[in-house]
């Protein structure tokens, strides 16, 4: 009987039909990190913000325009990630402090704790906003510190980095902003 044997061999098609998509799904899934979430802000103008800094000075994002900016969200309780990236930020400021503007934004942190963190791990030359109501974090879609946004001279968000910054990452982003590493 030819018909049943054709049906019988067609049954074997079930194997690749089930296995191939499953294999693709499982192994693509494995290749990605669920903690990294792309930001919808990339390619869009940076959300404006204003507020008081740790030093008690009023600061507004309007002051940034004209120069590329690095907006870093951090907190004193974010250990070890924020401790790890602190020297990277200090180094970035030392090398490119005059070409770009750096801004720190606290995420759900007490000002005293944040000052303690800077006393311990090194004072910084750039302003750090208190962000006590958390509105800036929400405007930037911050999931948790540390997170860093790279903004070009026109105020367009170029990239977001989730997790501690590394020198390699910084150099890659500097190149994207058109600055020499």
């Amino acid at each position, binding site marked *: 009987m030819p018909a049943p044997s054709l049906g019988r061999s067609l049954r074997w098609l079930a194997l690749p039909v089930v296995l191939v998509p499953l294999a693709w799904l499982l192994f693509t899934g494995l290749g990605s990190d669920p903690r990294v*979430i*792309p*930001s*919808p*802000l990339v390619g869009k103008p940076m*959300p404006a913000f204003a507020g008081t800094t740790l030093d008690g000075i009023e600061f507004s994002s309007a002051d940034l325009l004209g120069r590329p900016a690095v907006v870093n969200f951090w907190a004193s309780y974010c250990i070890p990630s924020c401790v790890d990236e602190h020297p990277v930020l200090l180094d970035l400021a030392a090398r490119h402090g005059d070409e770009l503007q750096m801004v720190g934004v606290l*995420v*759900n942190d007490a000002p005293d704790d944040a000052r303690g963190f800077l006393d311990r791990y090194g004072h910084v030359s750039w302003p750090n906003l208190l962000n006590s*109501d*958390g*509105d800036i*974090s*929400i*405007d*930037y*879609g*911050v*999931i*948790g510190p540390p997170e860093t946004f790279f903004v070009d001279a026109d105020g367009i968000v170029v990239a977001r980095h989730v997790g501690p910054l590394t020198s390699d990452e910084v150099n890659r982003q500097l190149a994207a902003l058109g600055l020499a590493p």
Partner: protein
Amino acid sequence: MRRIALPVAVAALLALGALVVLELVRPSAPPTQVEQARQIAAELRCPDCQALSVAESQTAGAAAIHRQIVEQLAAGRTPEQVRAYFVTRYGEWILLAPSSPFAWWIPPAAVLLGVGVFAWWLGRGRGEAGPAASPPGQARDRIREEVEQLDA
């Protein structure tokens, strides 16, 4: 008594159904802003926790989002606008119930397909005269008899 019970039961069920429909049709008070805020918060993912909504979570991040929802509603934004605002900041990731129709229709469609195939199979089974049952072993017959006797 059992003879009239079913008509009574069906009538009661229908009456209850009618009541439910009436209740649904009756214009109810529009949700207050507090209710709206709660509803939105339940559908937004808390950014600094896992698998919980803003409404359920107690973290500072969730509290800030909750406050923004209340403020934006008070400023006259519609719930849809509030939700859209959070999507423009966090992406679709912030929504605990994905907006894609694909996500909503695939599972019910699969269930309906399953029910359809099952119904077709039942119908087919009725059409054919089934082949005689294979003669099971004597032992199995005995077990079955015993079980059926007790089940009766």
